[in-house]
């Protein structure tokens, strides 16, 4: 834990000292989302605690409270607040948090590792067929029903992928570990599922509009 350069109190976050209320500059250094929100770096997070951290810290750094301050202070508030908001968005979303952890631990990026888990690939081929038939389907037909079933299947599949990710990341593996490649592959699968679900949603919207 680092200390406040002004009052030497222990810092919860590198953005602001909660003891003397001084806004701190983080210019030129990367602040991790865990550091920014003052939460422990690990996979498991408590959404309530995360939200509380965001609100508590925002109470100290939000630009609204510095609207009449010197430009330098206003800029610090602006940066600190943006950092907090970005950190919160990164951590509260499971795939984004996993993506951040994989990168931070020196694992492959999505362009370096494009594979998906083997077992998953077989299912993808099946799903693509259902999707193909669903394009242009109208409400009430078998293809329509297959599309709705696919939606449900994808949701439960997503849960399973995220559980696999949680298992690999609890506790956090060592930097550069093999497990990180596995997590990246699972994340690629999640991304495929999310894209497909988005397509299903728009297909369904189209069909319901066309049917109306």
């Amino acid at each position, binding site marked *: 834990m680092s200390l406040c350069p002004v009052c030497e109190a222990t810092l919860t976050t590198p953005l602001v000292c909660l003891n003397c209320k001084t806004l701190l500059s983080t210019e030129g250094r990367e602040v991790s989302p865990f550091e920014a929100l003052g939460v422990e770096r690990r996979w498991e997070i408590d959404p309530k605690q995360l939200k509380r951290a965001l609100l508590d810290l*925002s109470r100290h750094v939000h*630009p609204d409270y510095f*609207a*009449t301050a010197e430009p330098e202070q206003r800029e610090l508030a602006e940066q600190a*607040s*943006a950092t907090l*908001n*970005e950190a*919160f*968005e990164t951590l509260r979303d499971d795939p984004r948090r996993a993506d951040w952890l994989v990168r931070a631990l020196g694992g492959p990026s999505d362009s370096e590792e494009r594979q998906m888990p083997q077992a998953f690939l077989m299912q993808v081929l099946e799903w693509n067929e259902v999707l193909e038939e669903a394009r242009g389907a109208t409400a009430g037909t078998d293809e329509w029903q297959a599309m709705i079933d696919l939606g449900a299947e994808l949701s439960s599949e997503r849960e399973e992928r995220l559980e696999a990710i949680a298992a690999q990341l609890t506790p956090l593996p060592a930097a550069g570990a093999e497990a990180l490649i596995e997590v990246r592959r699972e994340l690629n699968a999640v991304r495929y599922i999310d894209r497909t679900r988005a397509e299903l949603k728009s297909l369904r919207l189209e069909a319901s509009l066309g049917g109306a």
Partner: protein
Amino acid sequence: MGYIELNVLNNVDQPMALGIDLGTTNSLAATWKDGRPVVLKPEGGHGGSVPSVVHFAEGGGATIGRKALNKATIDPRGTIFSIKRFMGRGLADVQEELKSFPFPVSEGEHGLLQVDVYGNPMTPQEISALILTRVQQIACQTLPDAELNRAVITVPAYFDDTQRQATRDAARLAGIDVMRIINEPTAASLAYGLDQAKEGKIAVYDLGGGTFDISILSIEDGVFTVLSTNGDTHLGGDDFDRALANLVLAEVADQIGEEALAEPALQRAALIAAEKCKVELSIHPEAGLHLVLPENGVHVRRNVTRDEFEALAAPLIQRSLDACRNALADAELEPSEVSEVVLVGGSTRMPAVRTAVEMFFGRLPHTELNPDEVVALGAATQAHILAGGSRDLLLMDVTPLSLGLETVGGAVSKIITRNSTIPCSATEGFTTYADNQTGIDFNILQGERELAKDCRSLGQFSLKGIPPMPAGMARVAVRFHVDADGLLTVTAREESTGAKSSIEVKPKHGLTDQQVEQMLEDSLTNAKEDFEASRAAGLKTEIGIMVHATEKSLPTVEDHLDPEQLLDVREAVDAAKAARESDSMDPKLLQKVRDELERATMPLAAMLMDGVAKKALSGRELSDF
């Protein structure tokens, strides 16, 4: 010797700031006073709200607000209303609206819309500035000792960057320092969340004169977080009026023919009759819808039942509920998870709207605060926070629309997604698509659509100086930053060389800085002209009185004056008469003439005073002279 402690801090007045609701139909100001926000109402006035209407007389002269509203039927061409619908829009954006507006609108420089007011083009920004000036004037009359030139101004949540910027420009033209532009529903929630330390999720349903907004917020420990917003920029009370007006106009068509319907005065009269009927239907189960214009041969008197009206209103209300559904989906909530529903906007007085909202959310909506005042009250609360007056509350707002860049093939890469809490930053990597490409052009987009052509372009900029290398090798990081004011800055940087380029986004249909400055200068020049004209008129009146008095008294004393003095007086009187009857409105010239007359008649005046004194002594009355 003891010291007397002075608690200086307690004696310092809190700096005051206004919250202004610049509405489509009405505008209103509030401020923080004695620990709560209050609407600024002039004594004996109409609740402080100013109809957002400006009337321009042919040949100049503007009236604003209630007086202008009265001109709507007499002079529809010169009476500008609902100008908010044109703020920051291009001509192509408003084709639909234009059909029902009796005043001519065209496109000026930079794609800027302008209303042609008797040959004099006025931008929506300038017209809004007049409304803001009037609102501020009323506020200043109510609180004469306060300096009230800083304000938080509200806009519909669904306003895009260009429309927000147009609102800022309007305020600037009115000489108001804009502390922040905030969303109307958010402001409303601040006003509601104040009294009770509420926790939970609130839905704010805001159906105003011209726009519909729905916002979902969460309140925790005095921190208001906007979870999502949605809306329809073309749905408001005006549309309900239009539906009723069409009902009566169909009958008018039978009387005087389809072609005659285009008459602006007729259209306007139909809308006014429709609004009156709509308001009555909120109270009574049946109301009259009368349109009688003898000069046009129009005589329609009919009754409308609430059922009839609600059938017309149903599709409009349904559109608002669709937006509610989308907002809830974005916030990942079910209707039943919303703990409070707040109604804002005069149109929520319609019983059909209240019932529909109650059914949709499954709970009775709040109506404790006046729906016409709640937005201004919330804006005043935020103004108080920004002025440094309070840290009890905090508003964490969101970007209403996604921001991104156009990519190869006209697609959109979203960098900041809608409903992100601001201030926020996001960085995305891009690369070159041709070998030895040394520059990249960026087109910054705002909107939810997938194709660049369907989104609004906020501006273009290019990054140059990328060293020649094979396609796909350059590493360009593009950073978007949206500040607490909601303004976007984009920075692009090539990682290997550090080549950098950035842009502060200036919207397309907005005013350029030069234009704003020119307008400010014009308004100052105009102010000077106006001032000089009124001064000149005053001098002419004064000269007239002096000439009259001199001519009246001259016979009684002329025998006692030197011939030279007499000539002097006669010359001065002639010059004064000539100046008074001339077209000259130059106050300097008139002042000189007046002073000269005063000097020449000095001996005469002295003699008169003398004579008056003598005659008064001899029992005659002063008034006899």
